[in-house]
């Protein structure tokens, strides 16, 4: 049987393979990686009857233009994404997110762009044919770890698809709204007291804007300068996704999936787990505000986030 694959006619800006990411490797300097918006990654998989852990194609802003070769598949796209399906008879169909589609060979998916958000996900029924690295298919372009030599996709490359025996139906779809919330909930960090009382209150009162210096590693913010009254460096220590660290220039940085594993900047706060998906989706120039919550609140908010995710997953199944 000849291999089913997508030929990449246009790679898009930052198109990579992602899944849940890696575990137990921080201590050797390998970061977590994985889908930036985990809920949308899961929903894309569920819509094509995959296990939610299956690898998906993650794209940022402009997505890829893909031509299917040697077989038929079903696929779904999630996020706030504009895309078209170019059928064999050259008929162009406007795509709808959160819907399972069939695609015949030689047909194309043209992922034009994300809207008011950064990341979108493409899942293929039956999954992609990939080699795993440390139990994950996630691509980490900074350390070149993962499938495709740890690199983002380029033109003319192939995305291999598992030869799924049957293309699964019936058409599944859900209504889902990507609510963009400009209020980011955080827990105070271990170095909150490094900052002047004035800066501590400014951190929660004033707006910070997302800058262009934002990628899968982290998000640099600009706003009221945070004045450090103790020391602008700490003895280097571990980092986690969601940490908000403040270097000597006083502008906060939120660490995201491909962050370095050790750092020496003071940690003013940490984004709560329930808000990590939506932080990843913030586009440059968006103005955000930090809101302090307790650990207990954060735990409850995460329970709500999980049950909401499960509600949508159940709706699909």
């Amino acid at each position, binding site marked *: 049987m000849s291999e089913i694959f997508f030929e990449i006619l246009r790679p898009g800006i930052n198109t990579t393979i992602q899944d849940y990411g890696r*575990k*137990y*490797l*921080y*201590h*050797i*300097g*390998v970061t*977590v990686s994985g889908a930036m918006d985990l809920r949308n990654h899961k929903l894309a998989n569920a819509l094509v009857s995959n296990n939610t852990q299956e690898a998906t194609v993650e794209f940022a802003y402009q997505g890829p233009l893909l031509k299917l070769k040697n077989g038929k598949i079903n696929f779904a796209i999630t996020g706030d994404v504009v895309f078209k399906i170019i059928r064999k008879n050259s008929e162009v169909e406007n795509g709808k997110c959160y819907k399972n589609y069939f695609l015949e060979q030689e047909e194309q998916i043209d992922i034009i762009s994300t809207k008011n958000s950064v990341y979108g996900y493409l899942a293929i029924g039956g999954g992609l044919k990939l080699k795993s*690295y*440390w139990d994950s298919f996630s691509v980490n372009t*900074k*350390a*070149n*770890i993962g499938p495709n030599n740890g690199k983002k996709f380029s033109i003319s490359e192939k995305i291999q698809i598992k030869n799924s025996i049957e293309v699964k139906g019936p058409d599944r779809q859900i209504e889902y709204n990507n609510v963009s919330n400009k209020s980011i909930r955080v*827990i105070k*960090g*271990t170095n909150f007291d490094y900052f002047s009382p004035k800066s501590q209150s400014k951190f929660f009162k004033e707006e910070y804007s997302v800058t262009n210096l934002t990628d899968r590693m982290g998000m640099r913010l600009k706003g009221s300068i945070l004045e450090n009254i103790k020391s602008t460096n700490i*003895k*280097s*220590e*571990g*980092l*986690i996704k*969601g*940490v908000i660290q403040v270097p000597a220039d006083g502008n906060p940085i939120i660490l995201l999936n491909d962050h*370095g*594993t*050790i*750092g020496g900047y003071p*940690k003013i706060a*940490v*984004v*709560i*787990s329930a808000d990590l998906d939506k932080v990843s989706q913030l586009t440059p120039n968006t103005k955000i505000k930090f809101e302090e919550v307790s*650990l207990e609140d*954060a*735990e409850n908010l*995460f329970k709500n986030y*999980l049950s909401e995710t499960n509600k949508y997953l159940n709706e699909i199944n």
Partner: protein
Amino acid sequence: MIKNISNLGDASVYCDFGSEVNENINSEVIKYFNYLSQLVKNNKIEGITNLSPSYNKLIISFDLSLTTFSNIKNSLEKIHIENEFKQQSKNVKIPVCCEDKYGLDFERLSKKLKLNKKEILNFYFSKEYFCYMTGFIAGMPFLGDLKKNIRCDRLETPRVKVPEGSVGITEQFANIYTFESPGGWNIIGKTPKKIFIKNQIENPALIKPGDRVIFYEITEKEFLNWNE
């Protein structure tokens, strides 16, 4: 001993072993790290997803859908690690070529330390180093402590690209750039040895926290003909 346990966000535990950087405190961190790694491996503790040991802290990340801060904290408080608990440490020898084309910062170091290149290298190679932690980039070891007379601040302006294999020093520490990366350490040479081999899935990092490292000088000819 852990001096204080607090939460870092809602999905990690921040264990503070003290504020100083020395081998004693770091050995405690590594002891806990090794012990917890065993518990995770043997499924004796639920939900832990990562352990990050550093000079004097240990950060335990967990999956908030499986456990909570207070669960992990309770488990930690019950832990008693026998002193005989086996530390899995080893000795590693690292060849370094210090020709000027690889040792990029001898001019700066000589000026700052008031020592010539030969003196700097004599001090550098005459000591065994302890690996406090690895990270920042995959496999990068943070080694210490340098002799007092070769301690120097990092570069005022970090390099955009430090070549892979570069051996650097700053303050009381030495390191090895396992990949080409930005960086501000003073570069004194380059090793031909692969320190992080990502295709060796089981054991990609040559140097691990707790290991002891001895550097030795090689000629450029040996560097160029290096064969693992």
